[in-house]
């Protein structure tokens, strides 16, 4: 138990450090952005031609006259109070925008990773059990092809087949859960082949181990031994991959949201870029960083659950 706590504490410290790093990155993004935020804020208040004095007052209130390091800590302090900022574009609080849009992106990404897990797991197991079958060779051939197809092309092909050809699924906008199916497929299909290949390879390696032979020596059928003895050992690297691809999926959600016109974070940040709404971009990076850290934490916890060696090692 103490081991478990120690491992968790280490992850927590790493997580906090990474989070701080991401706030620095996000702050610097705002800092290198062109234009003076004071003008932007005055502009959004309806002051189109501000006087020097007006600008000076706003600059001081924003802390823009201080050093970069001071500005960072001021900004960080604001963040801790839950004050991410005001969107230049809509004049709405960014928190409100985020709260409206995070669920869309999170749902989309969760659906995509669920799809990824539910396909790669059985498929990898099936291919490992039927090594060198026709399907196996076909799949391995397809893997390298798929890795060179970007998500947006997959999306276009899916739209062509399922939405315009078969007229089965909606292609744009958010109207009920079916709207998320095609975008989720688009951002997970390419990684599906990669993960399946890794799971297959890990399983084949596990089939060659001595503990697997020992399981067979107990009279367990191959399939049973494969699921009970090989699979848990093959899972650890696949779990890491799932985590990494989950993060790639979060990034890819911006592309899917743009193609399928989903009102998520990605679509919002792309709009914000068009209107030079820099606080929105900063907020986007922060939210993504937090989401990714949560994914890392879940992956680490799952690793502890499936790998007694990590849990028990002192």
């Amino acid at each position, binding site marked *: 138990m103490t081991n478990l706590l120690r491992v968790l504490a280490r992850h927590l410290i790493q997580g906090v450090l990474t989070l701080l790093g991401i706030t620095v990155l996000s702050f610097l993004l705002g800092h290198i952005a062109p234009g003076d935020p004071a003008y932007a804020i005055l502009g959004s208040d309806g002051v189109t031609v501000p006087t020097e004095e007006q600008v000076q007052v706003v600059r001081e209130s924003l802390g823009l006259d201080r050093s970069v390091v001071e500005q960072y800590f001021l900004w960080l302090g604001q963040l801790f109070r839950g004050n991410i900022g005001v969107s230049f574009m809509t004049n709405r609080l960014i928190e409100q925008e985020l709260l409206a849009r995070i669920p869309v992106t999170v749902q989309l990404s969760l659906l995509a990773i669920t799809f990824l897990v539910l396909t790669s797991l059985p498929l990898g197991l099936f291919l490992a059990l039927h090594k060198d079958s026709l399907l196996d060779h076909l799949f391995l051939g397809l893997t390298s092809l798929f890795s060179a197809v970007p998500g947006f092309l997959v999306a276009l092909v899916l739209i062509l087949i399922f939405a315009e050809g078969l007229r089965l699924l909606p292609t744009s906008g958010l109207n009920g859960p079916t709207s998320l199916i095609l975008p989720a497929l688009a951002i997970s299909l390419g990684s599906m082949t990669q993960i399946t290949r890794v799971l297959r390879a890990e399983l084949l390696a596990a089939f060659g181990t001595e503990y697997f032979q020992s399981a067979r020596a107990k*009279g367990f059928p191959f399939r049973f031994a494969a699921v009970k003895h090989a699979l848990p050992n093959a899972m650890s690297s696949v779990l890491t991959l799932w985590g990494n691809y989950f993060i790639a999926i979060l990034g890819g959600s911006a592309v899917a949201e743009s193609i399928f016109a989903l009102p998520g974070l990605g679509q919002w940040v792309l709009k914000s870029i068009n209107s030079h709404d820099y606080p929105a971009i900063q907020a986007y990076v922060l939210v993504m960083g937090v989401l990714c850290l949560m994914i890392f934490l879940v992956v680490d916890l799952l690793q502890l659950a499936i790998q007694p060696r990590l849990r028990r*090692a002192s």
Partner: protein
Amino acid sequence: MTTPLVAMHDVNIRFNTTRGWGYAVTAVSADVRANTVTAIIGESGSGKSVLGAAVMGLLPNNAEASGSITYAGLELLGLTDREWDQIRGIELGWVAQNPASSLNPVYRIDELISEAAIHRRRIRRRDKRRFAADLLTKVGLPAATGRNYSFELSGGMAQRALIAVGIGLDPPLLILDEPTKGLDPANYDRIRDAIMDLAGEGHTIMLITHDVTLAEQVADEIWVLYGSRLVEQAPKQDFFATPLHPYSQGLLAAMPSRGLHPIPGESPSFFVPPEGCPFVDRCPYAVAACHELKTPSHPTEGRSVLCLLH
């Protein structure tokens, strides 16, 4: 005279490798009598472990076996996967080499010991710990070891745990592959005692080992494998009193108690198909006809030796 439990007749096993065919077992014919300990001795690469794996039906995919191995009259070579699954564990027990890597690191020892009984004998899950504790006690480990994982055990403990795993379904025949490899003297003695206890309970044991001293201590019957061939087979007393094959003589002379005299020369290549006696290149008595020697002779009842001298 007891009946043979395992009978081998002209067993040949070769491997299809990227470097061509490799010959692991050549023309082995011998019997394992029930309720005895048969020590199969030889150096690494002699084919002894492969022979054990063949009896378990656990040869790798690139292996090709011919001849006949019967267990209680049942022909083993050519069994289907399903038929193998019926007899493995229940009739044939296996204790693999390298206990550290033969115990799955994701399960506790008690699960590994009892899982065969749970899935195949339908003992109840809640009896798992008691079941494992009984077997652990039998091999001289504290019952609490069951709650550990393999990587938490020392080499000697892991070896004994692996034996507990192998006897989980109480199989009549046990194949132990190098059970004393790399152990310190104290653990060595415990394993030896455990083997003798198992033999005393009436298990038939095939003990695969490179350790001639262990064979002398526990075995009833000695098989000597060299260069994929069975060069000598004899009751223990006869073997240690008068080893007949020149290789056997060399093996005994190399024992620490007998002066540690090494055998000059090198072992034959795995990739050269053995014709005749495999020891011919290192044998002080070799003659041309040794290259042609196909069949062993039987100088006395219950003994066979692959040598023209006898």
